[in-house]
C-alpha cells in the first residue's frame, strides 16, 4: 500500500485545475455584475445608497474570505433547510467576495474620470444614467483593465481557500494526494507551480496594461 507520487497522482492534480479556473471565472463573472452595481451605487447622488455600498465593501473586505465561506456554507443550510452543495456555496461566497473588491476597484476608476466630463455630459442634457453609460463608464473602463486583471489573480489564489470546506479544486486535490502518498514536500511545490503557471501570465498582462494606460494618459484620453 505504499503509494508514491507518480504520473497518476500528477494527472489527478492536473484534473483539478479546471475546477480552480471554473470557480474563478464563475466568481469573476458574477462578481463583475455585482461589482458594477456596487461601484455605481458607491458614487450615487443619494447618500443612503452610497452608505449601503460602502458598508457592503467594508464588511467583505474586513473579514476573512474563509469566514465568509463558512457563514454562507452554514447560513445557506440554515435558510434552505438542507445542506447545500459545496460547489453552490463556494460559488456564491466568491461571487459576493469578488463583488466587493471589484466594486471598490471600479469605484476608484469611476472617480478618476475628471468632474468636467460629468458636467459636459450634463450640459448636453443627458440624464444621469446616460452620462454614466455613454461618458463616464467608457473612460473608466480603460483605467480599470489593469487592476481588474490584477484582482483576477488575487481571486484565483483565494479560491484555494475553498479546499478548507472540502471543495475539490487544485489545493484540495493537493491535500488528498499529500495524505495519500505521505509526500507533501513533493505535492505542495507542484501545486504551487501549477498556480504559478496560471497566475504568472495574468500578472504580466496586468503590468503590460498598466504601462500602456500610463502611456496613454494625457495623450489618448478619449476614444
Amino acid at each position, binding site marked *: 500500500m505504499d503509494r508514491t507520487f507518480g504520473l497518476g497522482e500528477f494527472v489527478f492534480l492536473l484534473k483539478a485545475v479546471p475546477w480552480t479556473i471554473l470557480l474563478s471565472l464563475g466568481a469573476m463573472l458574477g462578481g463583475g455584475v455585482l461589482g458594477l452595481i456596487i461601484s455605481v451605487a458607491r458614487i450615487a447622488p443619494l447618500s443612503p445608497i452610497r452608505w449601503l455600498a460602502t458598508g457592503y465593501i*467594508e*464588511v467583505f*473586505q*474586513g*473579514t*476573512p*474570505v*474563509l*469566514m*465568509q465561506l*463558512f*457563514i454562507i456554507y*452554514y*447560513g445557506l*443550510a*440554515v*435558510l434552505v*433547510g438542507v445542506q447545500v452543495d459545496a460547489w453552490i456555496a463556494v460559488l456564491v461566497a466568491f461571487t459576493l467576495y469578488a463583488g466587493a473588491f471589484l466594486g471598490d476597484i471600479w469605484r476608484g476608476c469611476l472617480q478618476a474620470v475628471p468632474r468636467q466630463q460629468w458636467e459636459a455630459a450634463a450640459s448636453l442634457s443627458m440624464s444621469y444614467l446616460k452620462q454614466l453609460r455613454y461618458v463616464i463608464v467608457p473612460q473608466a473602463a480603460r483605467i480599470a483593465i489593469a487592476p481588474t486583471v490584477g484582482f483576477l*489573480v488575487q481571486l484565483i*489564489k*483565494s*479560491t*484555494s*481557500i475553498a*479546499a*478548507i470546506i472540502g471543495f475539490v479544486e487544485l*489545493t484540495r486535490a*493537493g*491535500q488528498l494526494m*499529500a495524505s495519500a502518498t505521505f509526500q*507533501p*514536500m513533493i505535492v*505542495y*511545490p507542484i*501545486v*504551487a507551480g501549477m*498556480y*504559478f503557471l496560471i*497566475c*504568472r501570465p495574468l*500578472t504580466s498582462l496586468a503590468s503590460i496594461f498598466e504601462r500602456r494606460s500610463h502611456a496613454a494618459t494625457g495623450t489618448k484620453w478619449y476614444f
Partner: protein
Amino acid sequence: MNYVFQFNVIWEHLPALLHGVFLTLEMSVMSIGLGSALAMVCAYGQVASSRAIKRLIGGYIETIRNTPVLVQVFVFYFSLPILGLKVSPFAAAVAALTINLGAYACEILRAGIESVPRGQVEAGRALGLSRLQTFRFVIFFPALKTVFPALSSQFILLMLSSSVVSTISAVELTAVTNSLQSTTFRAFEFYFVAAALYLGMSLALKAVMHIVYWLSFERNAPSVG
C-alpha cells in the same frame, strides 16, 4: 425555516473567543514586524545591489505573488522539519506569513522608492550624506509616506489571511471557532460572531495605522501656506 438562532451559547464561550482574538493579533503583529523588516532589506537590495541579488529578490517576489497563501503555508509547514527545524505550527504559520508579507510589502516599498525623483538622491549625496544616510532620509522616509496607505491595507490583508493557518493546526481565532462550533453544533452563530470579531480587528488595525501615520508624518510636518 425551522432553525432557531441561539446566540446565548456565544456568551458562555466568549473568553475562549477573546483568547482567539488575542492569538490572531499576536500572530499578525509578529508577522507584520518580521515581514516589514524583511521587506525593507529586500527593497534596499532591489535598488542598491548587484544584478544577481536583484534577480534573486525578484524571483522570490514573483513566486510569492503568484501562489496562494494557503499553499505557501503548507509548503512551509512540511518543509521546515526536512530542514531539521522542529517548530510549532504557530511558529511555522508566523514564518509563512512573514515570507508572504515580505514579498508584497517589498513590492509596495519599491514602488514608493521609485517614485522619489532621482534629483533628490543626487542632492542628498551632494550634501555629503553617505549612501545609507541618503537611503534613509532622502529616499526611504518620503517613499514610506507615499505608500503608507497601500502598506496598511496589506497589513490588514495579512491579518485576514492568517485565518487559513488553522489548516496546519496553528491555534488562532478561526481554529478556536472551529473547535467551539464542532462541540456546540452552533456553526452559523459562531462563524457569524467570529466574522464580526475579525471586522472589529481590521477596523481597529486601520485606526492604529492612521494614528501611526499622523504621528510619523503629520505631527511634526512643517505647515504649508
